[in-house]
């Protein structure tokens, strides 16, 4: 036993392996629940019942589906490229799973005299790692589209690669201001930088009335959502686009491209794509929470102090997952050229502007958050100016012609 531990490089590595296994299992479990929750929630939104056969409230439905898919015939088109076809689903799933390694899901727990941080790996390049995994994730979709050897998947694959590359840029750029503000690429540091209350920001210090007013808001946590909200919205939009979810689900638009890149997939391979998408949703939600909503931060009563951060984290992440579902229930799908327009001509310039703003503002420490808010307002003005579109789209467009009487 000791020999094995030594071989692995000591206790630290063993801990890491245990953490990895636990995180893997937890993530898969979460995904199963998320799939069920989405179906239940969206059914509720659509005046349906949703899954209700397996387990209480149909909670085991995903499991049943998984088992069904597992035992289905593994079908592969004759024109498909054998190895690539098999590789693609794995590549779609694994990077999403790996990305979870840098998400801090809680503070730390103490077992015996050993402190265990509730994060698989606190890398000093955490954000870059997240982006790297995202960029690998493109392969699954692209290769699936190509390897299927038929036209609709190819179209879906091309759409997917263009979309994911474009929005990866916006996604990466939207994280830069946060990194600038926190001064670190490590997710743990970023969460730590969001501890405390907004009233700590001493913008109003010394100003008689305003100081008291600021004091009133001491209960508001010092999350980056307040100062970095433009970055947050860019992150959110780009993140949704990265997951290929509505309203950015063009690569698998079912009414246009049948099922896009996974048209030819069935059985367990399809299940991998399916799971990969939901894992990705969870990851994006978790990253949004970590970067902009204080991560696991929240009130921490004395009772079981280590469980509260986890609870807060799960709660916040759940809200974002709910947002994903909500969007899917509400939004039609964007058109391909509009999608590219949004990504390249709006999100990327906007995030570049915001990086500049943050970089300038960040050089002076004291009142930075308040300055960021001011700049944010400026930014919104720019944003609206940028967003000025076709007057027919924004103005009143309803045609108003009705004939009441007789033949014309």
């Amino acid at each position: 036993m000791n020999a094995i531990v030594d071989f692995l490089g000591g206790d630290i590595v063993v801990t890491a392996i245990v953490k990895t296994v636990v995180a893997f299992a937890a993530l898969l479990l979460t995904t199963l629940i998320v799939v069920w929750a989405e179906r239940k929630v969206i059914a509720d939104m659509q005046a349906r019942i949703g899954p209700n056969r397996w387990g209480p409230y149909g909670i085991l439905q995903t499991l049943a589906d998984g088992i069904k898919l597992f035992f289905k015939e593994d079908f592969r088109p004759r024109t498909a490229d054998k190895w690539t076809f098999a590789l693609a689903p794995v590549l779609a799933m694994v990077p999403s799973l790996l990305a979870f390694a840098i998400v801090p899901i809680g503070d730390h727990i103490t077992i015996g005299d050993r402190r265990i941080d509730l994060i698989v790996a606190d890398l000093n390049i955490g954000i870059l790692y997240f982006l790297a995994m995202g960029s690998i994730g493109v392969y699954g979709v692209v290769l699936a589209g190509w390897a299927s050897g038929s036209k609709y998947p190819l179209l879906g694959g091309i759409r997917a690669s263009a979309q994911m590359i474009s929005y990866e840029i916006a996604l990466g750029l939207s994280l830069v201001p946060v990194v600038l503000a926190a001064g670190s690429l490590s997710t743990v540091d970023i969460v730590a930088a969001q501890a405390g209350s907004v009233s700590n920001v001493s913008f109003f210090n010394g100003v008689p009335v305003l100081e008291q007013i600021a004091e009133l808001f001491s209960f508001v946590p010092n999350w980056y959502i307040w100062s970095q909200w433009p970055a947050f919205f860019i992150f959110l939009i780009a993140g949704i686009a990265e997951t290929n979810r509505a309203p950015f689900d063009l690569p698998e638009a079912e009414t246009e491209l049948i099922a896009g890149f996974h048209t030819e997939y069935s059985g367990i391979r399809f299940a991998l794509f399916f799971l990969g998408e939901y894992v990705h949703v969870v990851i994006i939600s978790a990253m949004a929470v970590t970067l902009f909503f204080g991560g696991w931060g929240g009130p921490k009563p004395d009772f079981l102090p280590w469980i509260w951060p986890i609870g807060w984290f799960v709660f916040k992440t759940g809200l974002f997952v709910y947002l994903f579902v909500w969007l899917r229930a509400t939004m039609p799908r964007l058109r391909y050229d509009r999608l590219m327009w949004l990504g390249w001509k709006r999100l990327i310039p906007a995030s570049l502007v915001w990086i500049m703003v943050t970089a300038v503002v960040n050089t002076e420490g004291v009142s930075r958050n308040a300055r960021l808010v001011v700049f944010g307002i400026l930014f919104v003005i720019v944003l609206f100016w940028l967003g000025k579109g076709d007057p027919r789209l924004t103005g009143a467009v309803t045609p108003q012609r009705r004939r009441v009487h007789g033949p014309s």
Partner: protein
Amino acid sequence: MTTGPTVEPVDASEVARRAQHEAEESFGESEPRLDTEEMILNVGPQHPATHGVFRLLATIDGEKLIHAEPIIGYMHRGYEKLVEQRDYRQITNLVSRMDWLSGINNELPLALALEKLMEIEVPPRATYLRVAMAEMNRILNHLMFFASFGAELGAITPTFYAFREREDIQLALEMATGGRMHFGFFRPGGLKEDVPAGFFDQALKGVRQVIERLNQYEDLLIGNEIFKQRTIDVGVLEKEVAYSYGVSGPIARGSDIDFDVRKDDPYLSYEDFDFEVCSAPNGDCFDRFWVLVHEVAESAKIVEQAIEGMPSGPIMGKVPRVVQAPKGEVYVRTENPLGELGMYLISDGDRTPYRLKIRTPSYSNVSALSHVLKDTYVSDMIAILGSFFFVLGDIDR
């Protein structure tokens, strides 16, 4: 398998050819060019956006549709020939299967044609009931397209709402006829039987609910920015083109053709009712859809008026035991949910028609597709197909 006349014979490849020719002229020798390759994509016959076995032979360059050719006929059933072998009562059930979303409306022109030919007087109660049921059927049809259009653009939720609204009206019709799609309720001379107790309440409940909720649905779908982006100025069908293809119904009205048989050539008792003909000026997907949605409200208004003013009395005129049209010919047109449905009946005095020519709206409407689809995006293609509101059975009779 005809695709209708081509208005504009010039297509993209010809433009390229012309340019090439020009280049050759100026230099006396041509050089091969580096162009991206075009791909031929078969949309359908099995495709979720084509509502059946409709096929679109699309030539695409990347995401751009260079040329699209609708190919129809995959479910041609030869109704026009079939009806010549069957007597008039049987025909009623046949024609109701043409446009399976509006069975009652399909039965109507046949009944009207026979009544005209046989000079049968239809009692007012039957006429009123016919109007009410036809308009309820129209609401069902329009809601179906409301549902599918949203779904095609990626908005899945309106689908379910539309089906929820349909259910109450569907139930009313079921109470009266026993059928949900193919009702077989209109007979020459009147109706099969009187409506049961509770029918009016159920119908009123249904249509009032529709009127009440329609605004919400409008906000949900029509008010959506993405929806607007997907539909406005997409797939414009010009007024002149619509005329030349004989496009009718909501699609024509979306192209500023203010024509509605119910107003312009009234039948049944449509003159008694207060309703409006919606039309919109731009001819794009948005306008077509807008007309469709607003027609639901108008139809609901008609149903309300018809039920409120429902006369009592018999529901069947004096019809001989054997339905046998006298020698002669007659043309009847009605406003089907999807456009003008015309039936040209020639009778040689037998129990079966000598010839029944049916002019179905979808057939004329889809022939305009290849014009509209030219130089659009693949995503637009879906929006355009969805906004052309066709039923395959109505194309391939």
